[in-house]
């Protein structure tokens, strides 16, 4: 495997990791606020905060990893994405900053503050929407290189059906993934009322998810026929993804094996995400950066890969420790510790 392929695969795994953990977090924020508005907060908010408190920082690091690694492996992305994403990127930073800090203010400082809760819920939906812009513009046609540098074509972006379908897909998948996870977590905690509530959310958000995936696919054929055709060649990957989707929804529907159901959700997104990524190649940013044109020098690529492996040797045991103490420690989950 070439360095650039290793690099992009590793980065894609990180983005996938962020997609899962951040969706759980973003969606949970929204559900917590929604439950408060509908006066059901006593049922699930305890559950949500017990899970979120120990892990929110870890979620953020996944994202930092991705963009720092991207600039490291493919320095040209700093130039093209940096120039064109100044506004959407800055908005995303502001939202992330408000979310992260308000979460900490709320949970360590003034408990149950309505304003903090509102921001926490609202940013949970706005952040995925603004971050998804980066994926949208990678399809090409949204930026232009002039003598004065690279510019984002806001008119194109805001009127494109593709860009809106990506936003829609991002929103519903966040809610779907999150509800699926909370269902599993509520089951582990043996919290019946919460389980009933989040299970309903999970079933509710499953059909929009699959509809949004289809519309995005169709919109892609309008935006970038080339990419669409390469995706069709990988039809079986997307087929497996849909199969896992059906397994997950079925298990939730019959109300058993919630753990397996969530694993199926993860696999559903793993296949869809890697199918999307593989068919996106060789372009990283169409038509300016390809895998081979954008990659950093060999010595840096090797150094980054070595650092990465060394880092994993440090992190994986620590992460396992974290999970054993909070996520999989039945006593903790049930609120006895």
């Amino acid at each position, binding site marked *: 495997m070439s360095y650039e392929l290793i690099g992009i695969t590793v980065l894609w795994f990180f983005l996938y990791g962020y997609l899962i953990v951040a969706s759980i977090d973003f969606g949970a924020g929204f559900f917590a606020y929604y439950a408060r508005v509908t006066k059901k907060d006593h049922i699930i908010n305890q559950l949500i905060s017990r899970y979120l*408190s*120990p*892990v929110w*920082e*870890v979620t*953020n*690091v996944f*994202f*930092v*990893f991705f*963009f*720092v*690694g991207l*600039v*490291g*492996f493919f*320095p040209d992305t*700093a*130039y*093209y*994405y*940096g*120039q064109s994403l*100044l*506004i959407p*990127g*800055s908005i*995303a*930073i*502001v939202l*992330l*900053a*408000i979310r*992260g*800090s308000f979460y*900490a*203010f709320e949970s*360590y*400082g*003034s408990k149950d503050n309505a304003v903090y809760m509102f921001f926490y819920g609202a940013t949970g939906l706005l952040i995925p929407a603004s971050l998804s812009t980066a994926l949208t513009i990678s399809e090409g046609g949204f930026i232009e290189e002039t003598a*004065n*540098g*690279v510019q984002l074509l806001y008119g194109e972006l805001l009127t494109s059906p593709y860009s809106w379908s990506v936003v829609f897909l991002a929103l519903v998948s966040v809610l779907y993934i999150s509800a699926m996870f909370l269902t599993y977590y509520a089951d582990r905690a043996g919290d019946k009322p919460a389980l009933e509530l989040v299970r309903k959310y999970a079933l509710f958000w499953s059909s929009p998810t699959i509809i949004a995936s289809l519309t995005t696919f169709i919109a892609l054929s309008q935006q970038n026929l080339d990419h669409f055709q390469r995706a069709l060649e990988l039809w079986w990957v997307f087929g497996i993804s849909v199969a896992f989707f059906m397994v997950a929804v079925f298990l939730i529907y019959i109300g058993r094996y919630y753990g397996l159901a969530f694993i199926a959700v993860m696999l559903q997104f793993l296949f869809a995400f890697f199918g999307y990524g593989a068919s996106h190649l060789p372009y990283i940013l169409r038509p300016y950066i390809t895998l081979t044109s954008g990659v*950093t*020098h060999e*010595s*840096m690529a090797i*150094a*980054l890969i070595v*650092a*990465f492996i060394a*880092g994993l040797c*440090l*992190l994986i045991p*620590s992460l396992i*420790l*974290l999970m054993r*103490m*909070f996520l999989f420690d039945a006593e903790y989950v049930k609120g006895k*510790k």
Partner: protein
Amino acid sequence: MFELDGATISRMLTSMTLLFHAIFATVGVGVPVMVSIAEFIGIKKKDPHYTLLARRWTRGYTITVAVGVVTGTAIGLQLSLIWPSFMQLAGNVIALPLFMETFAFFFEAIFLGIYLYTWDRFKNPIYHWLLSIPVVIGGTLSAFFITTVNSFMNQPQGFEMENGTVTSIDPLAAMFNPATPTKVFHVISSSYLTSAAILAGIAAIFILWKKGSTYHKKALKLTVTFTFLFAILTAVAGDLSAKFLAEYQPEKLAAGEWHFETEEGADLIVFGTLNENNEVENAIRIPNALSFLAYGDFNAEVEGLEETPVDEQPPLWIHYMFDLMVSIGFYLLGISLLFLVFWKVKKWNENNRLLLTGIALAGPLSMLAVEFGWVYAEVGRQPWILRGFMTVTEGATTSPYVGWMFLLFLALYIVLGTGCIVVLRKMFKDNPAELELERLFPQVAATKEDDQS
């Protein structure tokens, strides 16, 4: 403000973000060290006062960490958003430590999460203390990695430039450039110093305003002792930094010291003003001291600013930044020494109001010293963003919207700053140390140890 050119606004935006992040980053590096020390003493002496100190510091720390993390994420992204050309070039050479920095954060974040929620989970408290070690290591390592990036901007090496593209890249040489040792040492020691001084300031304020109990007096003794130790370390590191500058970046030292002509036995100019002919007035001159600061020899020759081409000279106002930083450094050293002397000499009362006020001031002053130090170091690199290779104007974004982004981030930092202060105040006002002590360790509070001192 929109009449300013893009590069100037980009600089203002970067300065604002970095100076804001620096507050939280400094605390983020230093406070875990103090927490770990306090918890260890608490276990060794079996004194719950120290354990409570560690617990309460950690609780405040969670708030500052949160702001540190979000503002750090902001800078990480802003580097690409605001300096795209710079990152495209530098990313090729210096991506390694930036990448490793995220590992350090990750490591710190994981163990901080565990540390926070496991105070009462272990039978033997030493296990909980052990969890603080990875937090300390993670914070300090992240300071180390990010500072190597900054060192690289001052002393770029480990690559060759051929018609605008970089080749022959050596990531380790880029990371371990000549600026790295002194810079890392000074940044880390000053973070420890600042955190100790801030915690000392808080203890002093409690004793001044609320009389304070034994708990606060113990906190004060502990933190001032470490302020003193770290102040010595920081002064040594600062001295080494100056010696580094004299050898590798003489224009920064010369501009900072208003040292215009190369000469032997150069005087150190402290404060003062410049008249229209750039002559120094109203300054205190310490004979031959600059030669000593630069080379450790009172008669050594120090290069003057005249040797640097005019368009590559840093602005002269950084002189005040340097002087303020050094003055604060000596103030911290002095006030902490004074306290220690008063404490050891039995007849004197170390808790007299004047001394306590001096210590209360030490906290904010040390944070200011960090900010002055960064402004000195970064503005002293002007006009370069990558010294000798790329100027700030070449590195900046050409997007016309940076001005608006400046306003957006200004608003963000106002919100974050206020939120942070409000929450921290509320957190400790609603839950005074005395009450918490009673709740957590009823047997100690019952002995009324507090009344004896």
